[in-house]
């Protein structure tokens, strides 16, 4: 077995998490990995670092990473890192890793993350445990990744005892996002220079298109309309906008073409995990409630005090949604309350 470019004795006591951006925020999976990385690092008294590659507007991203627990951020800035290309990102990440020699390198199992991690592992001649469903620390700083193969129900525990860094990818949503840290330990930003050559990059970004389909699964607030709102999604849209959220629906309004299918919440729609779900005029059928059961807080508005939705809701308002929602919009406009995401 070929040895890795650096071994356990040279590796530093650091867990490094690849920070993937999405516009001006970090991807949720990167934050989830930082949360988990913090926990693992604390177990063995190591440091937690974030690896941030890019070219512009990096500061707000660093803030987010520190907030969920990073001690250091390793930054490489280069015009060729402006948008993700697997060649430039692999090369830059490789240079930073060889410079800092972390013991562990974690990456979200997103399309780009998977692309990057695989190439990086080959370049570093180390192992990669892909799609872990759990990560644990063993004595001597050995990372153990749990991998479940579906179906066979096989459950493998994989470790990389000799090679460094120990690499793993984890799918979004596997680890919970911990609340921001308040106590401040250290916050170091280290700029690491990388050399990149345009000739290396064989990917050409022609155009960046953001999918037009709504993604209500990521929204911090979801305002759901059921049959009871009689198609008044215009009202719900206003409310959602004021709260920085998205509009969702039960199946009947989708069936009758009042709203797009992508916004259907439930068993055969999407499962969302907002901080707040406001459910208007939905009876609360099981096939629907499975789609909002992960919401932190559910507020239901229904004319029928016996509606089953009140069993699922944290707060219930018995009344006509078509009167309550406009009143709520009015009140919000006056007080300019807004819920921020993240």
């Amino acid at each position, binding site marked *: 077995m070929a040895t890795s470019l650096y071994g356990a004795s040279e590796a530093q006591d650091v867990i490094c998490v690849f920070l993937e951006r999405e516009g001006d925020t970090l991807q949720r999976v990167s934050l989830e990995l930082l949360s988990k990385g913090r926990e693992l690092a604390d177990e063995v008294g190591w440091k937690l670092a974030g690896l941030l590659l890019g070219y512009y507007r990096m500061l707000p991203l660093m803030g987010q990473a520190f907030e969920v627990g990073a001690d250091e951020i390793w930054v490489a800035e280069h015009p060729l890192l402006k948008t993700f290309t697997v060649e430039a990102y692999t090369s830059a990440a490789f240079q930073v890793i060889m410079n800092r020699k972390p013991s562990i390198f974690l990456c979200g199992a997103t399309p780009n993350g998977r692309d990057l991690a695989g190439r990086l592992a080959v370049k570093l001649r180390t192992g990669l445990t892909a799609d872990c469903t759990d990560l644990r620390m063993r004595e001597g700083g050995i990372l153990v990744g749990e991998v*479940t193969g*579906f*179906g*066979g*129900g096989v459950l493998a525990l994989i470790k990389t005892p000799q090679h460094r860094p120990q690499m793993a990818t984890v799918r979004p949503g596997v680890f919970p996002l911990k609340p921001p840290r308040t106590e401040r330990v250290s916050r170091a930003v280290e700029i690491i220079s990388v050399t990149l050559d345009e000739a290396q990059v064989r990917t050409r970004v022609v155009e960046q298109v953001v999918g037009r389909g709504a993604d209500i699964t990521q929204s911090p607030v979801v305002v759901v309309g059921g*049959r009871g709102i009689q198609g008044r999604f215009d009202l719900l849209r206003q409310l959602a906008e004021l709260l920085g959220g998205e509009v969702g629906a039960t*199946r*009947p309004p989708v*069936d*009758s073409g009042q709203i797009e*299918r992508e916004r*259907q919440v439930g*068993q*055969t*729609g999407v*499962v969302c995990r907002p901080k707040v779900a406001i459910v208007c005029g939905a009876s*609360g*059928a*099981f*096939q629907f*409630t*499975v789609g909002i*059961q992960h919401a932190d807080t559910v507020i239901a508005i229904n004319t029928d005090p016996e509606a*089953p939705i009140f*069993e699922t809701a944290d707060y219930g308002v018995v009344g006509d949604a078509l009167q309550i929602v406009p009143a709520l919009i009015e009140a919000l406009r006056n007080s300019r309350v807004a819920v921020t995401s993240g």
Partner: protein
Amino acid sequence: MTQVEHLTVDDARWDTLFERTRGAVALCYQCGVCTALCPWGQVREGKPLSVRSLLRRAQLGVPDDHEDIWLCTACAQCESLCPRGVPVAEVFQSLRGMAWEERRVPKGLPSVLWSIYWNNNPWSQPPSHRSRWAKGLEVPRFDPSEHEVLYYVGCTAAYDRRAQKVARALVKLFQAAGVRFGTLGDEEPCCGDAAKSLGYTPYFEEIVQNAAQVFAQNGVRRLVATSPHCFDTFRNYAPRYQADFEAEHYTQFLDRCLSEGRLRFSREVPLRVTFHDPCFLGRRNDEYEAPRRILDAIPGLERVEMARSRQDALCCGGGGGRMWMETSAGERFANLRVQDALATGVQVLVTACPFCIACFEESVKAVGAPNLRVMDVAELAAMAIE
């Protein structure tokens, strides 16, 4: 010029399919009875589910990227009249199994299987809430030295608030009949019907084996299931994996309690009802009479038949894993079935399956028939006891 579809024949694929269906796919001689009978033909005008041609492609080992293999509700309508005895739904399950291997699976289905894996139920519900349905009721933990049967609640009746009412009604009935029963509480294993219908056979086998083991460890010799789907799995599939227990659907069990005089209905339930045969109770397990005898024993209750009933009953659309797949608004069998019920002029459409209840309740609203109630046999029976 006519367009000719080019087919690539794949012998290895055929061999695999032949083996997985234990040769059954070879039996089909292309008469087309299945296509004619399949309810998809009634909801998709001009483009029925061409069961026959899918079987032909399968026989030739022609890879199909047909979404159509996911449509089958396993209703057994076609199987009941296939002159060659082809287990059509199982063939579809095998085709789905191959699609899993090729990672061509409709969105949302992997998470159903993951949910069974993590939560022991296909509904993404917390395992620790499994016995919450019984809150406030006296439901003891099964003890083989004390109890005659295990009441197997099943994932849907345990978690779906509507179906929970059926489980609660059953407990009432068991108590009234003096049945010595218990449940396995939060440890009750999933039956695996979802994994089976979605075609993930290796995992299904593992689930049933595990369930059989849990039953053996708990000394279970007989169980009574709420859902015909669990019942079917335990009755027809578990024995393939050395399971050593008997399974009954609750309608069969209650029917026996009635005939043995343990259960008596004394209260009038003056309702006009019609009974819908759940596919997994009727066509799949040949039980048409037990639920009808229970209904007929209820004083004051009047039962009429729909135009198509027993062997000819129209599927609700919820079997074959369709509970976890979206069906376009115009293509839901349940809408047609509700029309069947409305034509009889009854007040209640009665069934004995939690999937049917979910599908019908939705369709009752969709077709605008607010006066037609959807109830379970157990709920009506519970109304008839003191």
